[in-house]
């Protein structure tokens, strides 16, 4: 796999979703444009590609991309699974609940780029340390070490956002997402929720759990748009995408 860094044969093409790219070599890889070139965040591979200069006789410039592993990131798994709309795009402001150590967050930060913002909420102090360190290198990431159940506690740190992404794996996650949307998400903004059936109810069938979660999101004024299984990357997981409708339809 180290061959991917050889560089000569790799071609990077834009993905259907703005800000996401595909590196084509022996095998195709999902990549994002590295916001702090020269550094990996969690040991992921980097690919450097020559971009022809815009001047006629100028030297080509290097652009660095980081490989995004769908087995490690549910958003990457969702993108490879063919999500219709991810609402996360260059310039967007994203509220990320359940940021953990910030590995996936770093890719989201790459996507939204310098004009966007990622508000990364994580309650665990242990992963919070890593998250803060990652955010030092990416100034569009605002780390928030606080319980996503109590969004009022961090209301001073956040503005209005275009999208909410949640990977909190809690039984009451639909409520957590709802509370945060009511406070911070723009009307008609996007909601992406990763649902791990086991974390909600380990006794019921995954399909039944997913259906119940979608219903709970409806009650929080989130209109479901699509539901996608994260197979083969994760077992009994699905990604639910919806649109927040503040007004009654």
């Amino acid at each position: 796999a180290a061959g991917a860094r050889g560089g000569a044969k790799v071609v990077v093409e834009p993905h259907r979703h703005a800000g996401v790219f595909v590196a084509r070599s022996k095998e195709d890889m999902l990549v994002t444009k590295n916001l702090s070139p020269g550094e990996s965040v969690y040991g992921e591979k980097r690919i450097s590609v020559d971009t022809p200069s815009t001047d006629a006789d100028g030297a080509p410039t290097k652009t660095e991309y980081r490989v995004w592993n769908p087995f490690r990131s549910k958003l990457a798994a969702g993108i490879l699974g063919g999500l219709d709309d991810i609402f996360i795009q260059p310039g967007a402001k994203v509220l990320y609940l359940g940021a953990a150590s910030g590995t996936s967050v770093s890719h989201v930060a790459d996507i939204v780029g310098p004009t966007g913002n990622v508000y990364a909420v994580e309650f665990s102090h242990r992963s919070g340390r890593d998250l803060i360190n990652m955010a030092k290198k990416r100034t569009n990431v605002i780390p928030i070490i606080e319980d996503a159940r109590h969004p009022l506690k961090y209301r001073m740190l956040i503005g209005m956002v275009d999208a909410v992404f949640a990977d909190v794996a809690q039984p009451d996650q639909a409520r957590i997402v709802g509370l945060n949307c009511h406070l911070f998400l723009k009307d008609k903004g996007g909601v992406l929720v990763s649902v791990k059936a086991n974390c909600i109810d380990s006794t019921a069938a995954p399909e039944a759990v997913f259906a119940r979660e979608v219903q709970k999101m409806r009650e929080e004024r989130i209109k479901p748009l699509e539901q996608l299984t994260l197979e083969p990357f994760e077992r009994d997981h699905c990604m639910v995408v919806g649109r927040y409708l503040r007004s009654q339809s």
Partner: protein
Amino acid sequence: MAAVDYLLQETSVGYGLYQVVQQPDTIGNRLKEVQEATQDLARFGKMIKLVSFAPFQGAAQALENANDISEGIANDHLKALLEINLPKGGGGKRVVLGISDKNLASSIKAAFSSVDCETNDVVQDLLRGLRLWAPKLLKQLQDGDMDRAQLGLGHAYSRAKVKFSVQKNDNHII
């Protein structure tokens, strides 16, 4: 329901106090037309009027206030803003202040006997409008000031959380 007279906005750069000029509908609150009014700056700008903005004097003061707000405590900086700008409750006249947090309500009531706090849905919608248009409504702010303040405050707030945690391990929540 009593009409809302004032709104309190808490941001990373300071506190904003707004007067509600045009009372919003309480009944059609979730109707499309009413919701769209908040999203249109021209229309929303006519519903509220900035009374005063109390910026933080530095990162330390901002952090102190962020911590207090998170715990529902009315900081002296906030009390000073309300003291100066809210009308004095002479002759039993009461003022209704719309805020986002019930915990803060009790702290404000304890300090100002003539102020009633309101946190209902109508208030929340107005506060959403303030959050959405904050960089435009606070005219003394430069482009990007709010983002920079959020970044600095987020780091300071989170660093303090991690640093002062007694247990080095995770808090397990079910």
